[in-house]
């Protein structure tokens, strides 16, 4: 198995000659075996990045490799579920799974695909066009998991699922990933539900990488502080991501560059706090942590 699932350097994608850049100057390295969350506001470039990784879009500049090779070469080893879950509406559920089997000779796992469908009480004879959005998601995920991919790219996979189905499918997804060492990359708006499920974070904003690295390391690199508003000037050596003043009190998210003054009360931020602070301050500098580098440093 390849060590690096996705690697990009100076990656840029622009739609049309004079269009806006959907992605610009993106550098990232996602080691294999992680469950990576791709987070960012609308139009941040999440879907574009996933489509480029799936080999469906060609980068305008820079390069991206998937599983150590060109995305189109890697296609038999990856699965991609687009946001609108494209399936053949005329096919039945059973025929869709058969399609998966015939299109993936030699590495189709019928047991997994059928289990995912069965969990949702789907009638195998039902046509895809008669299914609800959430049921279609289930069929699309069954196809993707049945392929037994090394890399699973999911664009907003859970958006139209009810809470129970979401929990159940996320569990199935992560269990399959754990058993087969699959790397999972999924984009989502719902940050809170990614906490606990993901161990790698990629935060995009306006087509650029804002945060990238192992989630634990990114969280550890930030501190939430509260203290008197007047003490703001004492924060100079640290990188202030976001600061807010309410009356005489100041709340800020920092990347400490050393020990903090005693006047500050400190707390560890949650994933949601980390993401929101960065979304509210688009001008905060990017932070990219290398998975291997930080592990060596810790050892």
């Amino acid at each position, binding site marked *: 198995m390849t060590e690096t699932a996705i690697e990009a350097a100076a990656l840029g994608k622009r739609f049309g000659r004079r269009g806006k850049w959907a992605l610009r100057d993106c550098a990232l390295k996602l080691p294999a075996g992680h*469950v990576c969350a791709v987070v960012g506001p609308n139009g941040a470039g999440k879907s574009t990045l996933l489509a480029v990784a799936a080999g469906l879009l060609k980068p305008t500049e820079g390069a991206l490799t998937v599983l150590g090779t060109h995305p189109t070469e890697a296609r038999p080893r990856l699965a991609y579920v687009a946001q609108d879950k494209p399936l053949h509406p005329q096919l039945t559920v059973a025929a869709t799974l058969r399609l998966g089997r015939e299109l993936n000779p030699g590495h189709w796992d019928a047991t997994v695909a059928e289990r995912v469908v069965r969990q949702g009480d789907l009638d195998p004879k039902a046509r895809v066009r008669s299914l609800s959005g959430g049921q279609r998601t289930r069929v699309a995920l069954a196809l993707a998991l049945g392929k037994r991919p090394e890399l699973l790219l999911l664009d907003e996979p859970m958006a139209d699922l009810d809470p129970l189905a979401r*929990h159940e499918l*996320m*569990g*199935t997804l*992560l*269990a399959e*990933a*754990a*058993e087969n060492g699959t790397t999972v990359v999924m984009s989502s708006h719902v940050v*809170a539900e990614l*906490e*606990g*499920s*993901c*161990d790698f974070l990629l935060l995009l904003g306006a087509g650029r990488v804002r945060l990238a690295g192992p989630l634990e390391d990114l969280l550890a690199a930030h501190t939430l502080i509260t203290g008197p508003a007047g003490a703001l000037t004492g924060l100079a050596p640290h990188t202030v991501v976001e600061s807010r003043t309410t009356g005489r009190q100041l709340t800020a998210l920092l990347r400490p560059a050393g020990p903090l003054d005693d006047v500050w009360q400190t707390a*560890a931020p*949650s994933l949601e706090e980390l993401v929101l602070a960065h979304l509210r301050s688009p001008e905060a500098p990017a932070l990219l942590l290398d998975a291997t580098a930080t592990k060596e440093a810790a050892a």
Partner: protein
Amino acid sequence: MVEFRIDRRTGVATYVQIVQQTKQALRLGLLEPGDKLPTAREVVEATAINPNTVLKAYRELEREGLVEARRGLGTFVRRSLGAAPADSPLRAELSDWTARAHAAGLDRDDVAALFASVLDEQFHNGQFGDGRFHDEQRFNNTKGEQA
């Protein structure tokens, strides 16, 4: 077998929650030496948490000598925690004492307060970690219900 309950809002790291819940099960005798812990796959499937988190918790329990991983078989409990199983003589003595306290007119809260203050005195305020204290408190609570 135990089932883990993951609370995403406590701020307690997920792997710590698994470690604490396993220890709690060991103290209460719900897990005994030789018992098998659920596989990472089973935990992930039931809780939708990251598989690496489960493995990290199990490594921590292994480091503390509480469980051992047997290749290809799973993770098994090596030793128990706490020296006061449900049927020990200590429990019987405490039961007698509680009955006497009750007969002397103390209600449940009086007994709990008395017990807690003796615990504080004997264990010098959390010297043995608060896990053990909670455990004993729970023990005390069950007594109260029976009395």
